[in-house]
């Protein structure tokens, strides 16, 4: 257990009590970096939720309610002339919602970069981060000679990766400037309202245009090409990694980071998000299920009483697309439960995908199920993963109880 003591704004961290880690310097640097990233992600999540929901409605209206052929776009459907009156109004609304949803998604990287930078360097860094994040999504056009003529062309976007790099660069740059530039009291206003912002914005411009965009863009193209050229096996490897990372911390930071990467791929229609939407809910359904089947399976309770309500909540939340309901189970016996549900979620996702389930839409709640291509394989995958978790966990706990290593109240 580590307790740190510090005087805010004055002293550095000091370890209190029986600190057990020797390499603490390293660890606290990592803690600091992850805290900044988490801060950025926490501000980005509401955008992903809002954009996701609006986007979902824009898909549900035409393809579920109006039963438009999924190969047609909304505009194709309108042009076909089959939809008139109220249906036409709904389709127009769906089109607006889809554009609006995409606009919202466009703010995800800027918000992330802005608040990550803010967490490091304060207000000046906030705006620079926002600009950097925006340019990561919409790169600044550069002039180049094409066929003997100067033309303006936008390079490949550096995306989330670019957002992360610029957020840290700008955050620490502002922090460093504020520390290094020492001025007399009279010049303080000059420093904070002119000098630091000027240097920061110039730094952002140069760094973004000449370093982050070319490097990040090249890496993004590379990842995309590798994943696409690897074909089926590449898809499976992606599914395994994505579902493992998604299940791992039940809606925590690793999960959200994986979600951001997966959302980027699914929005650009590079790779579907099937593995993730299954892995979001498999642990919750599985662990919840274990509280329902223990008596039938081994003839006794294997959890403390309070877990039985938590189990039902967990299943209910899972059908709403929320993983957090399973947290009590993971906290109680993390060493066994976390590896168990990670492995079983991977098995479930891979089963569903191998049988042909495809979901492009980033939402695992039950109301998104109509958007799945191959609902039966999807449900089979979910069932396989959940039942494995439930059965193995019940048997394991029963075994522990028999050996006297576990008591339930």
């Amino acid at each position, binding site marked *: *257990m*580590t*307790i*740190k*003591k*510090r*005087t*805010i*704004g*004055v002293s550095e*961290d000091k370890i*209190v*009590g*029986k600190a057990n880690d020797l390499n603490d310097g390293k660890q606290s640097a990592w803690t600091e970096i992850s*805290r*900044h990233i*988490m*801060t950025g*992600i*926490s501000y980005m*999540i509401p955008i992903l939720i809002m954009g996701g929901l609006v986007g979902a409605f824009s898909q549900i209206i035409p393809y579920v309610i109006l039963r438009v052929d999924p190969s047609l776009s909304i505009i194709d459907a309108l042009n076909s002339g089959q939809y008139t009156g109220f249906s036409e109004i709904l389709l127009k609304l769906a089109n607006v919602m889809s554009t609006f949803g995409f606009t919202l998604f466009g703010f995800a990287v800027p918000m992330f970069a802005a608040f990550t930078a*803010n*967490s490091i360097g304060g207000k000046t860094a906030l705006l620079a981060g926002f600009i950097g994040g925006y340019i990561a999504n919409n790169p600044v056009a550069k002039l180049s000679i094409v066929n003997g003529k100067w033309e303006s062309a936008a390079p490949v976007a550096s995306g989330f990766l670019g957002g992360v790099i610029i957020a840290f660069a700008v955050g620490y740059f502002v922090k460093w400037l504020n520390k290094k530039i020492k001025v007399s009291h009279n010049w303080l206003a000059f420093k904070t309202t002119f000098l630091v912002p000027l240097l920061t914005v110039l730094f952002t411009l140069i760094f973004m245009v000449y370093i982050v965009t070319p490097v990040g863009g090249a890496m993004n193209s590379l990842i995309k090409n590798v994943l696409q050229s690897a074909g089926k096996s590449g898809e499976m490897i992606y599914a395994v990694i994505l579902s493992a990372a998604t299940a791992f911390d039940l*809606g*925590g*930071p690793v999960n*959200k980071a994986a979600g951001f990467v997966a959302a980027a791929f699914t929005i650009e229609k590079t790779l579907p998000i099937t593995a993730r939407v299954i892995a979001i809910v498999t642990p919750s359904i599985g662990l919840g299920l274990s509280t329902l089947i223990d008596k039938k399976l081994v003839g006794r309770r294997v959890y403390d009483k309070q877990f039985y309500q938590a189990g039902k909540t967990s299943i209910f939340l899972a059908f709403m697309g929320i993983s*957090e309901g399973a*947290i009590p189970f993971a*906290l109680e016996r993390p060493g066994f439960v976390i590896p168990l549900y990670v492995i079983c979620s991977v098995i479930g996702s891979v089963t569903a995908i191998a049988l042909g389930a495809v979901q492009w839409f980033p939402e695992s709640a039950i109301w998104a199920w109509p958007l799945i291509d191959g609902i039966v394989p999807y449900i089979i995958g979910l069932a396989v993963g959940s039942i494995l978790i439930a059965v193995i966990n019940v048997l394991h706990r029963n075994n522990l109880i028999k050996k006297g290593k576990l008591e339930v109240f």
Partner: protein
Amino acid sequence: MAKKIIGLCACPMGLAHTFMAAEALEKAAKEKGYDVKIETQGADGIQNKLTADDIKKADIIIHSVGITPEGMDRFEGYEVYEVELQELIKNPKGILEEIEEDKGFK
């Protein structure tokens, strides 16, 4: 007069850990006979906000955060104990005891 503990809890998602940690700390502190006030910065915004007066009168200030919380300038110049959310949820009493020892309350 009872000594006063104030806490600030915030986790990245602001759904589960923030409130679990706040609850754990509040319970443990009450059992030990402290006055407690805990601010949470979750998905529902800042609840139970700590005022400048709370911070000034507090005997122990605990931060259990996974992100950089809002309003850190309020704590400028005060001595703060930082604890990880997971550890506070698991062992609030042990953490309080170590802090008490460090403060010399025992």
